[in-house]
């Protein structure tokens, strides 16, 4: 009989754990007095929880924002997770996140989907990002036109020697379709001339920006792209020319902000309706000097 009871107890324990997890953080118990003593200057009487989900490009940025904000406002709990803009958008539509980080604008289809579920997405521009095109440091190629770039990713140029490099097959690396960068790159580079262009069949889709960075760092034939935040000395960023007559521009805060770097985009935090309460405070802080200082520190570009 004891055995039976223990069997019955298992699902009970699981249910208890699940409910305690979900209800735990939503009832913050920090009293205003204790928080104000720890950091008297901050707006520390705030409390509540914020769930942030979305773009992989933004996940590091969102993480540092959340940590810094929480250390100033101990009553606020912020959970950040990535996965891709598409995942964040799907989560906001399903109501499983408060803030959706998206590195591409919502599509009309997604907005319609949200409206049906009674969700009204309101985008707040929080930072800018340049999508860097990277090759291995051993690669002699230093600059590419947008047209050449599109030809590489569509599959019309397959060997580096066609661009003046070594006689080697180009290993083309792309983010997978759950990434906002994937969609942004397709729409702004591949489809700049031909609206029906798609990633070529030789393109390798890797699950994360980091795996692209790692493969480019060790493979002399590889080319890939990701947000500027992932750049390091192990990869060489390629200067991009809008067309063959315009100057080659490297991605940097300056060139993204003044609009000379051709593959740049805004980054958004999307909320259901106008942000209010603790979420509005958080987004205001992000747009303020401290939030924007973090944007610069992580090699994204502050909003002008």
């Amino acid at each position: 009989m004891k055995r039976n009871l223990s069997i019955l107890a298992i699902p009970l324990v699981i249910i208890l754990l699940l409910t305690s997890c979900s209800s735990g953080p939503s009832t913050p118990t920090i009293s205003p007095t204790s928080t104000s003593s720890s950091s008297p200057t901050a707006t520390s009487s705030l409390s509540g929880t914020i769930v942030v989900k979305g773009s992989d490009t933004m996940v590091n940025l969102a993480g540092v924002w959340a940590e810094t904000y929480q250390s100033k406002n101990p009553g606020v709990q912020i959970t950040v997770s990535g996965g891709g803009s598409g995942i964040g958008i799907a989560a906001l539509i399903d109501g499983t996140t408060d803030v959706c980080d998206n590195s591409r604008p919502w599509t009309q289809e997604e907005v319609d989907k949200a409206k049906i579920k009674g969700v009204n997405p309101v985008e707040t521009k929080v930072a800018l990002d340049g999508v860097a095109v990277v090759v291995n440091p051993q690669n002699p190629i230093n600059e590419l036109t947008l047209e050449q770039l599109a030809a590489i990713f569509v599959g019309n140029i397959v060997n580096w020697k066609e661009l003046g490099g070594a006689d080697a097959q180009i290993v083309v690396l792309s983010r997978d379709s759950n990434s906002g960068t994937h969609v942004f790159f397709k729409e702004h580079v591949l489809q700049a001339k031909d609206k029906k262009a798609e990633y070529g069949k030789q393109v390798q889709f890797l699950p994360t920006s980091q795996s692209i960075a790692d493969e480019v760092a060790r493979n002399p034939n590889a080319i890939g792209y990701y947000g500027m935040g992932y750049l390091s000395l192990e990869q060489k960023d390629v200067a991009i020319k809008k067309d063959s007559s315009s100057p080659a521009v490297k991605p940097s805060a300056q060139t993204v902000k003044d609009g000379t770097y051709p593959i740049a985009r805004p980054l958004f935090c999307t909320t259901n309706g106008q942000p209010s309460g603790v979420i509005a405070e958080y987004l205001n802080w992000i747009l303020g000097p401290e939030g924007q200082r973090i944007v610069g520190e992580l090699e994204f570009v502050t909003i002008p």
Partner: protein
Amino acid sequence: MRRASGTENQKKREGRLAGKTVVENSFFGIHPLLASPKKFSKENLIRWIITATGWITVIILTLIMLLLFTEGLPIFSTTNPFSFIFTTDWYPVSDPPVFGILSFIVGSLMVTLTALVIAVPIGVAASAFLAEIATPTLREIIKPIIELLAGLPSIVLGFIGFLLLAPVVQNAFHLSTGLNGLTAGIMLAFICLPTIVSISEDSLSAVPKEYKEAAYALGATKWQTIRRVLIPAARSGIMASVMLGVGRAIGETMVVLMVAGGRLALPNFITDPLSAMTGRIAIEINNAVFGGLQYQALFAMGIVLFLMTLAVNIIADLVLEKQRRRYA
């Protein structure tokens, strides 16, 4: 069934007369308890709970299948099943979307086959070593270690493949990238090896010792005995272990996602970067709009995968059953 019912009833009656409930002959198992509520004892309660848990498993499995089919089949109203399975264009987020999964079916089969080519000889040799050559103490040490390998999280193997094996494969075969089907196949071999070793060893040990004694009595060496007597006698068990290994390898997701290279084109060689069905589903299901075409297509791909693993498991079951009957 009709013919048997007379004797069944008789048996039941006898059972009741003898003061016990015959459960094994009733279809639902619960029935005799309901028929005799007065015998609601502790014994019956336990029996009822166990029967119920058994049926819950069956029901849950049926519901999962039902979900898979109701979510996946609608895709065939917009994409014809033939082009879904036999074409290679996969543009799920384009307008209009195109769904052809042949590349992924071939990708899954290629990495699984590679894994088998590597894992079967090693696995069978290792199991022969464990069953016949290793001393009992050594076997008691090695077998649990091999089985522990089965518990290694696949993401760990994925990391090892991505960081250590991929550069080695790239240099050894002078490839443009180390993230390809071969690297994935080698990592999958590690995943199905424990299954193959463990079950093959069991079936080799289950061969009646008279076979072995007869072989030795005829002057056969240890190698001749293993090769010509033991392995042929245990072949259906070894076959079953291979089939279960196949099931394990074809369903593996994380490793192929990380090291297979993620190219969507139909792979020509095993050294090409490729995608497997599991990896595609895992990466795309997260941002597929619930109930949309991409979502349906991914579920339909799940159906194909399910039917493939089901076929493999049924074959394994039949083969194992054959083995069991032979030495019953």
